[in-house]
């Protein structure tokens, strides 16, 4: 039975008077599960399967996964299960929401009116512009918080000539987007979730998808379990998908960071054994001959076996499974993106989809799975969805360098924590607190950057203000507003709009609401055929981009005609060398430290830390260590150990488990108040500038 099957009973129980239904999507991962929302004065708690939350205006709200939404079909993860508890109720765990603007007076943040705070920021920014030019200003915001908000910031950057402009996808999806861009000519995910049900083989590389993209993984698991598809999992850790693959396909337990060698060797076997789709390769790809010679010469299964720790036979078998399937779906996670050469890993993986003709056909495609949902408008690195808002951007890391040198004076941050998320975190904390002159933060809770800010604006969030984003299959997610805005909070876009007005662009920033922004920003975009009214009518199903016209029903998958948005219309096959990790284990730091996510905690735990049910499930961060290593070091399960790297150390509870192989330790990337990123290395992919969170050298000692 589906949880959503209970909904009709609930509506009946609710009475007809003031009860209203809305559509929304989960605020967390890139699956973007659809939800139905009921709000009314007469909803009563029915059962523990339908949690009810009381809003500050006395209305009750209930959220139920939408059985009619093609994304999740009533399914949900434990993160989505407590969505309603993440709403502001006026009390309880969410009561520390930011409710009014604040400005720094000496060492303290004191309450200010919106007008005073905006005037102050406007005056300061104008001053910097006049004295030092636009180089002195920088903007950095979330990319999951809605296209409308992103567009307002982009427009401000464009008007003021600001080139220091970046989004949080830099830490997350940039390698995947850049890899897609290089191979296919566009950074957009080309696939459809329904490809899972058409695939005969599903290759999951570097993705603990059951923990991070759960409802999508549920579909993968169901497909494998029913015998419809073989599951091949490539991972360093023995995750749940890895164990599933052991049963329903094969698990390739690879050494950290050696993926390029594996995919090149699979390519070698595919070609040697005649398992390539020659017709597709000839008609739709470029540079196959270079690739063929390269992998034949340099990446025999035997050589790749030495690099990856697999056997040549395993590599051959994987290649045969892939090559003999009618449709193979290639999916990758942060294990390929959070790397020093993540873009190379992505491109070498996409090569396999291209040589086997698995692109743009049912069940045959490639996609990075992603973290958060994405903004539906993005600055250039995420190109392909640009419209007329183009900004030559500098990355947040370049901005930090500029701040350190003193050439950048001010930084505006919107809905992005900083320190907890940055590699070599302590370094960034000291730059922000020591070198920056003027810091403006818009957010929903106090955090590590509001503590350092000169001005803080309170944002309205999910459920309180409408906005749009997109999930991994380019399906537009429309978040309706159904709950009151806390205190004086306002939507994120209000800050850039009001600043724009104060800096001489009253006409350009005259929007009254998010819908007006949407109608402006959609021109020339792949969602040009949508309106708020149309999205509302489509409920949580919505449309897959491109939706070019008002009559278009959307686009299930891209590249069905084999034409790619490259200059010659062909996808590019890349000959790429395997490059070793930037910081290999040594005598003093004998372990490879891998970071990643957990099922119960979303990213840096912003919402998680205010959801008691989830905190109870994952009350603290941990470091996983193999029993053999633990025994050698005298480390006991449940006891605190010190994990040290060349950058810093943290004390953390050891979890002794063969979930990690010998020589590898694993800890959570963003557990709140546990600064894992004090340990990680600030080495970044040369193309995407995404940090290598997935591998650095570390030591473990008892304390």
């Amino acid at each position, binding site marked *: 039975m589906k949880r959503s099957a209970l909904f009709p009973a609930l509506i009946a129980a609710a009475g007809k008077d003031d009860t209203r239904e809305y559509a929304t999507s989960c605020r967390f991962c890139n699956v973007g599960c659809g939800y139905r929302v009921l709000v009314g004065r007469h909803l009563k708690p029915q059962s523990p399967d339908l949690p009810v939350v009381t809003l500050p205006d006395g209305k009750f709200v209930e959220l139920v996964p939408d059985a009619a939404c093609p994304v999740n079909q009533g399914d949900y993860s434990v993160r989505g299960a407590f969505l309603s508890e993440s709403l502001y109720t006026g009390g309880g765990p969410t009561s520390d929401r930011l409710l009014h603007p604040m400005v720094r007076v000496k060492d303290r943040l004191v309450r200010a009116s919106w007008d005073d705070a905006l005037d102050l920021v406007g005056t300061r920014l104008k001053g910097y512009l006049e004295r030092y030019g636009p180089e002195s200003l920088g903007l950095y915001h979330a990319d999951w918080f809605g296209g409308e908000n992103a567009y307002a910031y982009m427009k401000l950057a464009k008007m003021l000539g600001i080139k220091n402009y970046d989004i949080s996808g830099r830490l997350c999806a940039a390698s995947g987007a850049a890899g897609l861009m290089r191979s296919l000519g566009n950074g957009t995910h080309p696939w459809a979730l329904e490809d899972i049900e058409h695939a005969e083989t599903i290759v999951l590389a570097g993705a603990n998808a059951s923990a991070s993209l759960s409802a999508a993984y549920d579909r993968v698991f169901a497909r494998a379990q029913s015998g419809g598809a073989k599951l091949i999992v490539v991972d360093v850790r023995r995750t749940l998908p890895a164990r599933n693959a052991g049963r329903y396909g094969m698990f390739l337990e690879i050494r950290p960071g050696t993926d390029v060698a594996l995919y090149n060797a699979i390519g070698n076997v595919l070609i040697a054994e005649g398992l390539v789709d020659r017709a597709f390769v000839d008609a739709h790809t470029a540079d196959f001959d270079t690739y063929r010679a390269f992998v034949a010469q340099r990446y025999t299964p035997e050589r790749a076996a030495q690099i990856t720790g697999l056997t040549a036979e395993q590599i051959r078998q994987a290649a045969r499974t892939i090559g003999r399937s009618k449709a193979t779906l290639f999916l990758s996670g942060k294990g390929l993106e959070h790397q020093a050469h993540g873009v190379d890993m992505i491109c070498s993986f996409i090569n396999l989809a291209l040589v086997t003709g698995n692109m743009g056909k049912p069940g045959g495609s490639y996609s990075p799975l992603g973290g958060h949902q994405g903004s539906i408008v993005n600055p250039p690195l995420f190109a392909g969805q640009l419209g007329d808002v183009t900004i030559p951007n500098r990355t947040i890391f370049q901005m930090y360098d500029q701040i350190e040198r003193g050439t950048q004076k001010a930084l505006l941050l919107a809905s992005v924590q900083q320190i907890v998320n940055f590699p070599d975190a302590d370094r960034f904390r000291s730059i922000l607190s020591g070198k920056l002159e003027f810091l403006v933060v818009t957010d929903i809770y106090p955090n590590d950057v509001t503590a350092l800010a000169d001005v803080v604006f309170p944002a309205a969030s999910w459920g309180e203000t409408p906005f749009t984003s997109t999930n991994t299959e380019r399906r537009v997610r429309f978040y309706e507003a159904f709950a009151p805005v806390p205190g004086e909070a306002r939507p994120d876009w209000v800050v850039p709009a009001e600043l724009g007005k104060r800096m001489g662009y009253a006409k350009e920033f005259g929007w009254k609401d998010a819908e007006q922004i949407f109608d402006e920003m959609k021109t020339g975009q792949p969602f040009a055929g949508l309106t708020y009214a149309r999205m509302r009518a489509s409920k949580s199903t919505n449309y897959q981009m491109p939706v070019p016209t008002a009559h278009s029903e959307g686009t299930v998958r891209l590249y069905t005609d084999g034409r790619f948005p490259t200059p010659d219309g062909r996808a590019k096959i890349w000959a790429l060398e395997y490059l070793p990790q930037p910081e290999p284990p040594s005598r003093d730091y004998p372990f490879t430290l891998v970071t990643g996510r957990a099922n119960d905690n979303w990213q840096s735990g912003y919402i998680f830390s205010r959801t008691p049910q989830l905190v109870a*499930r994952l009350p603290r961060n941990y470091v996983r260590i193999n029993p053999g290593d633990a025994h050698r070091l005298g480390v006991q399960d449940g006891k605190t150990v010190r994990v040290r790297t060349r950058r810093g150390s943290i004390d953390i509870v050891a979890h002794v488990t063969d979930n990690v192989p010998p020589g590898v330790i694993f800890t959570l990337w963003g557990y709140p108040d546990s600064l894992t990123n004090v340990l990680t290395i600030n080495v970044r992919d040369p193309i995407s500038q995404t940090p290598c969170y997935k591998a650095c050298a570390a030591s473990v000692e008892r304390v």
Partner: protein
Amino acid sequence: MKMNRRESIAVIAAASAVVAASPLDGLVGYASPASAPRVKVGTKIELDRTGRLSFAYPTAAQPAEAVQLADGRIVAYSRICTHMGCPVDYRPKEQSFVCPCHQSRFSARAKGRVLDGPAPRRLPEIALEVDARGDIYAVGISAPPFGAAETVRAVEAIYREVAP
């Protein structure tokens, strides 16, 4: 191991405290031993032989299972997964219940606690009594099994019959 009436009430009281802490105060009375049905599960001898006993609780439509843990304790849980209602399977080696649908795992040792997976709440624990003859009875449940509205209504109807 024999659990007397007082112990089984303690189980329910502890479980009710968990429910009371959630926004579902209206359900505390649900597990009240006074109104809970008393259902025969099987005998100690059968359990010793098979390691587990299947039964239904609190209604005939709601599958449950009693199992004997490695330390000798006898425990029982609703078999209806709290994620979306699939029937969970007992894995004696891990002493946990595993759902075949989306792989939620629940501890049989620790009051049905969710060990992994999408399930948002514990597997409801069923309070047992073993009488002098070795007959095992289910006498209460820590929370409603998954199934919400219609379950609640069905269960309430039964309670009305059972309660004095």
